[in-house]
């Protein structure tokens, strides 16, 4: 039995279905992130596990025990949410020791535990500070320490870094990840930030409209997403209407206007109308005006992005695609209005059936 098992979880708020038949197993010591657009139900899911929201249907098992009737304070699950919720009138030490003291631990053992936890989050010297004397990042670390003081091996993180600056946020996520790995915790982490989710998770779960639409390792989901929504949500992609024109060894050939590209997708039949998706960083751009297996176009925009240059290319038929060229591959001498050929490798050409509701609707981020 996995550490956490979620079976058939459904939750409605009036006429809105926030979660619909959600099933998910989380293994012991696994770090799982749940991501999805705003309003997709990800927060409701974590609140059902924490016991803050009662589901209409379905069950949550922790360590093989159904916890539906266990009140919040007895679930012994660590929970950290976006709004920093420390007691402002209590010192850091008192905030972290609050749980153990309420649970009836003696002052000596509580003290030892709190000291250990504060050292763990690298705030050992700040036990006597008040929360507002700390930076936002440090306050959130105190909240993590307080959550761990419950002694639970399961930690729920609901947008824990959402209120922090980009730079602080990126540093903190690695710090928390390392700590949970060192402690051997099982973590369920809800976030809207796909990069955050991919960089620290063993597995990522994508929720849309209250349902899990896809789950997998970050690399699987980024490189070979099964759903077109996932392809767009996990990073930028160029989406183009195309038609399968030929079977090819190990895949197929798709036609976009009068240009052709090869894909490794073997599930398509000739004549099928499809959408292809290619990530901007998996395309190469070169001056030129001909050739097989490439998209031809004209450069209509160039942006320096730091580590990369982003080219906006208008291809035949008037569609615009974006190509990102990492500068560690060397600088290119491509200028505005140059005619260019854009190439890619067949395994970066993802092929999808035309969505029933249309592409735009399918990709909608909320």
């Amino acid at each position: 039995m996995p550490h956490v098992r979620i079976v058939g979880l459904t939750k409605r708020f009036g006429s809105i279905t926030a979660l619909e038949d959600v099933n998910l197993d989380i293994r012991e010591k696994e770090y799982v992130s749940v991501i999805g657009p705003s309003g997709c139900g990800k927060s409701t899911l974590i609140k059902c596990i924490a016991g803050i929201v009662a589901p209409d249907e379905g069950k949550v098992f922790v360590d093989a025990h159904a916890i539906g009737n266990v009140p919040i304070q007895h679930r012994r699950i660590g929970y950290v949410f976006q709004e920093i919720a420390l007691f402002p009138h209590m010192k850091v030490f008192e905030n972290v020791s609050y749980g153990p003291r309420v649970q009836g631990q003696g002052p000596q053992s509580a003290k030892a535990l709190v000291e250990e936890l504060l050292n763990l989050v690298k705030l050992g010297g700040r036990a006597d500070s008040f929360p507002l004397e700390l930076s936002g990042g440090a306050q959130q670390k105190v909240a993590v320490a307080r959550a761990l003081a419950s002694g639970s091996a399961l930690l729920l993180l609901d947008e824990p870094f959402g209120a922090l600056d980009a730079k602080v946020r990126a540093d903190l996520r690695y710090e928390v990840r390392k700590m949970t790995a060192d402690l051997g915790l099982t973590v369920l982490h809800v976030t809207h930030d796909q990069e955050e989710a991919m960089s620290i998770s063993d597995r990522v779960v994508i929720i849309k409209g209250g349902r899990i639409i896809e789950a997998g390792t970050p690399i699987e989901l980024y490189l070979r997403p099964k759903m077109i929504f996932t392809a767009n949500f996990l990073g930028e992609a160029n989406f183009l209407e195309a038609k399968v024109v030929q079977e090819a060894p190990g895949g197929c050939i798709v036609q976009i206007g009068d240009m052709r590209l090869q894909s490794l997708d073997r599930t398509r039949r000739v004549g099928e109308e499809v959408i292809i998706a290619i990530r901007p960083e998996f395309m190469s751009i070169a001056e030129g005006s001909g050739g097989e297996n490439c998209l031809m176009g004209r450069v209509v925009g160039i942006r320096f992005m730091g580590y990369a240059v982003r080219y906006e290319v208008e291809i035949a038929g008037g569609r615009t695609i974006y190509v990102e060229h990492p500068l560690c591959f060397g600088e290119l001498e491509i200028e505005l209005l140059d005619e260019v050929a854009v190439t890619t490798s067949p395994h970066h050409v993802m092929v999808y059936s035309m969505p029933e509701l249309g592409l735009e609707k399918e990709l909608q981020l909320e």
Partner: protein
Amino acid sequence: MPSVKLVDIVKRFGSITAINRLSMEIPDEEYICILGPTGSGKTTLLKLIAGLTIPDEGEIYIDDKPAIAVPAEERGAVYVPQQYALFPHLTVLENVAFGPLAHGVNEQEALRTAREMLEMMKLGHRADSKIDELSGGMQQRAALARGLATKAKLLLLDEPLGALDARLRVELRYKLRKLAKDSGVTTIHVTHDQAEATAISDRIAVLREGRIRQYATPFHIYMKPQSLFVAHFVGGANFLQGVVVKRQPEESVLELHQALRISVRDTTHLPAEEVVVVIREDRVNIAESAEQVEPDRYNIIEGEIQSSRFLGDFVNHQIRLANGDILTSKTPTQRLEKPMPVGKGVVVYFKPSDTMVYSYPPIGLSRELRVL
């Protein structure tokens, strides 16, 4: 259309100096980002230009005319605050149309503009919703649409994308720039997100503790940061301490911890000087063995993979070098079969020309780099 000029601006709140002798010029039709950590004075700077707060010292010019005595509503600027201040009893469309109406536009025209702006902000389908039926991100876009709909020539935007989900944020930032450029307005956009600032601005002003640390194009700031702080805050990099041991005509040799020597493309620092060498993460390469690297073009150092993190378009590795220093590398996913396993022995290599050398900061390295 307007240009903005700030001269020796000082703004204090009690004992705190929020803006400290700040001067800058913003040319007509430019898109400027004010970038800095929390508490650096970004919002105060924006409010000073908007006329919502008055400086203690200095002068502000809008279109070359002194502006401090001009009331906010006559400065030709629209200020979109972080807290959206929408009218809860009006619909989204009515809220957005309020912008142009307040500027004397007739109702039909105001509604037409409002619809246009809502479409652009991907809110067309929510035009008739009440404000409190919208998510935070939608409310932020409604507030932005209201600001844009005024057709003011000077846009002052305080974290305009701050409440949005990461993915939507990326999508809308390009739209925002395009709209500003197409309509020829001057935009000042406050953000704490360096990737956002780099991606959309003509120039970035990096703010820290009320002072501008650098004001230049994104290219210049990334390639030639004037200080260690800027190198750290914009773009991310590795920082290694060392001492200059030899100065040659085009390169110098540095000694890092445990006598590890590297070559750097720098001749401005003298032998025995304590320095910090900066190497951008994307310029740190990894190979399985030294035979794969041309020895005369690169610094080559043995190390061990300490962590690997898949970011989608890039993979970050942390490598512990033989001398104990740690480097972070950023490799395009395209170039990697898969992330390197933790514990694997590797060599890292980088060009002397991909290094930047700075004097060791008097306040210490960690304080110089500190973001908060």
